[in-house]
């Protein structure tokens, strides 16, 4: 009997469209575009800050408006998606063994959300928002 194994082709670009679980993975991964863009925005802010009041103030003025609001909201959504997906997988990467048991994931995740809320409140306080 002769063997002739058949290799099924896989799309290198469209494989992730084939199943919701892969689309969820991609949605998590593309948050990096928005985090990166925001980092560049902060870099620009620092640059303008270093150039003096006039440069900085016109930069802040340029950041205002509906297009900006839309952009920031988009970044916010992806930043939140990164945060939640990050917290949810932390127990898998860093399991905590206590004796013969492992600390249930929900405590580790819960602790992350608690720190997140506290950190956010602290920032808002120092920013003068609260």
């Amino acid at each position: 009997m002769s063997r002739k194994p058949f290799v099924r082709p896989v799309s290198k670009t469209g494989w992730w469209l084939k199943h919701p679980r892969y689309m969820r993975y991609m949605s998590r991964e593309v948050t990096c575009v928005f985090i990166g863009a925001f980092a560049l925005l902060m870099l620009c802010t620092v640059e303008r800050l270093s150039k003096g009041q006039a440069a900085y103030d016109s930069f802040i003025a340029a950041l205002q408006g509906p297009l900006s609001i839309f952009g920031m909201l988009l970044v916010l959504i992806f930043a939140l998606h990164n945060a939640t997906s990050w917290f949810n997988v932390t127990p898998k990467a860093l399991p905590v063994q206590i004796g013969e048991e492992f600390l249930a994931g929900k405590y580790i995740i819960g602790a992350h959300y608690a720190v997140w809320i506290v950190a956010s409140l602290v920032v808002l306080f120092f920013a003068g928002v609260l």
Partner: protein
Amino acid sequence: MTQLKKRMVQLEVLRYDPEKDSEPHFQKYEVECNEEWVVLDALNAVKESLDPTLAYRWSCHMAVCGSCGMMINGEPKLSCHAFLRNYDGVIRVEPLANFPIERDLVTVADDFIDKLKRVKPYLIPKEKKTIAEGEYKQTPAQLMKYRQFSMCINCMLCYAACPEYALQPKFLGPAAITLAHRYNQDSRDGGRDERQEVIATNEGVWECSFVGACSEVCPKAVDPAGALQQVKVASTLDWFKEHLLPGGSK
């Protein structure tokens, strides 16, 4: 005797005869099944009453041997673990994804077996003991450190689910790396450095991007995705020790 509830089940099975076909094609079957059956039972009924030429692997029929993995409606599943009551309409049955098709639902598993072997999946004792010196002892807490990862039944569903394995066939893959981690975590073992040479490579754990599909399809809750992230953390600490500490890792 109570009447067993019956149901006509339609299957669409991917066929491939290497001696006759240039490529695989679907074949439809309709077979009477008991309501509580699994897809494997339906395949057996097909083979028994309709088409004896249908080829597929199976053995224990209770999700412990890992033989009967196949794609059922596009999802990697053990056919003995896929209950007909969870499926409506035509059930599409294909061989496990990301492996070459040998014939019908039988895949070529050689790549998987090779990779299992490469990670040295056996105890390399820290201190060798003769039989006279007695057993290697281990506390329950030490056992729990790796026990979950020892539950793998080598069913290859994780390889079928992993898109990185689909895109890069050289990737060692979830089960093989999890198996290496199982031994690395074993208090009796001293072979971690040897295994790191195999798994801390670009085709080892670093091809993994934590899609997590492997853990989602694993029938034994081994959580290979978790194991691989733990290997990444350990390998990263190794890297820093080797590159930053004077004298390297030793």
